[in-house]
């Protein structure tokens, strides 16, 4: 359960990261591909090498979606409906991968924010990413 303080904190963090959405998103994806090679199977149609336009634009999309969702967390199911449909019927990414990307996103945030990524921020962000992933997989079955 996210407290009101946590919701505000999460929205603030994503707001501050929107200008570097590409950098953070691409970093998280690259980490996931390096640490969990099975995740690469979903990107056989992409150039996922460091610095590639595919990687940067896809990373940006993910971070902007996370930022958008954080603006009103209580409305996640509404905000994410189009993405829910895409993931359930088109992309069909096994939901285990959401956990892997969430973990790598936390590491990317830690590398970027250093000491500002406090234990409290980490806890809140972990909860938010779990909630986001759960909503994304809601229409799977």
């Amino acid at each position, binding site marked *: 359960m996210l407290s009101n303080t946590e919701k505000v904190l999460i929205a603030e963090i994503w707001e501050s990261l929107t200008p570097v959405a590409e950098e953070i998103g691409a*970093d998280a994806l*690259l*980490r*996931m*591909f*390096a*640490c969990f090679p099975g995740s690469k199977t979903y990107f056989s149609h992409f150039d996922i090498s460091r610095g590639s336009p595919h990687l940067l634009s896809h990373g940006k999309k993910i971070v902007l979606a996370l930022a958008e969702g954080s603006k009103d967390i209580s409305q996640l199911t509404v905000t994410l409906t189009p993405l829910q449909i895409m993931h359930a019927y088109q992309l069909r990414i096994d939901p285990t991968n959401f956990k892997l990307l969430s*973990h*790598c996103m*936390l*590491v990317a945030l*830690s*590398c970027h*924010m*250093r*000491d500002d*990524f*406090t*234990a*409290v921020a*980490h*806890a809140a962000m*972990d909860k938010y990413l779990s909630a986001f992933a759960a909503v994304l997989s809601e229409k799977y079955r």
Partner: protein
Amino acid sequence: MVEWTDFERSTIQDIFSRIEYGVVGPAALARCLVVYPWTQRYFGSFGNLYNADAIKGNPMISKHGTTIMHGLDRAVKNMDDIINTYTELSVLHSEKLHVDPDNFKLLADCLTIVVAAQLGKEFTGEVQAAFQKFLAMVVSALGRQYH
């Protein structure tokens, strides 16, 4: 039998020679207790764990965090025999401490994030992969004697 590449070996040695055990250990353990509060169940006798600040300033938690890092050091110095390195510690965590082995992974993830904050950009995806592979071996070895 695990195989380590030269990159993985040198990465692990490098990371552990650079981080301060007395800083990283306490930070990782405190973070684990904050991010995954149910892990506090194993620390009932450690005093005040009431909130993040209390946990961070708790001297028993700090001391234990450092102890954990010295425990990890044993694997750093015995990368080719991590399983046997942890036989006794595995028995201890199972028979005496009754720690659910799933918790080892939670602490490992928190340690990864603390080290990431320390090393910043140098903690690349490849370095992270090596670090996680090492911690996964430790976690597996620690869970091995459970029955």
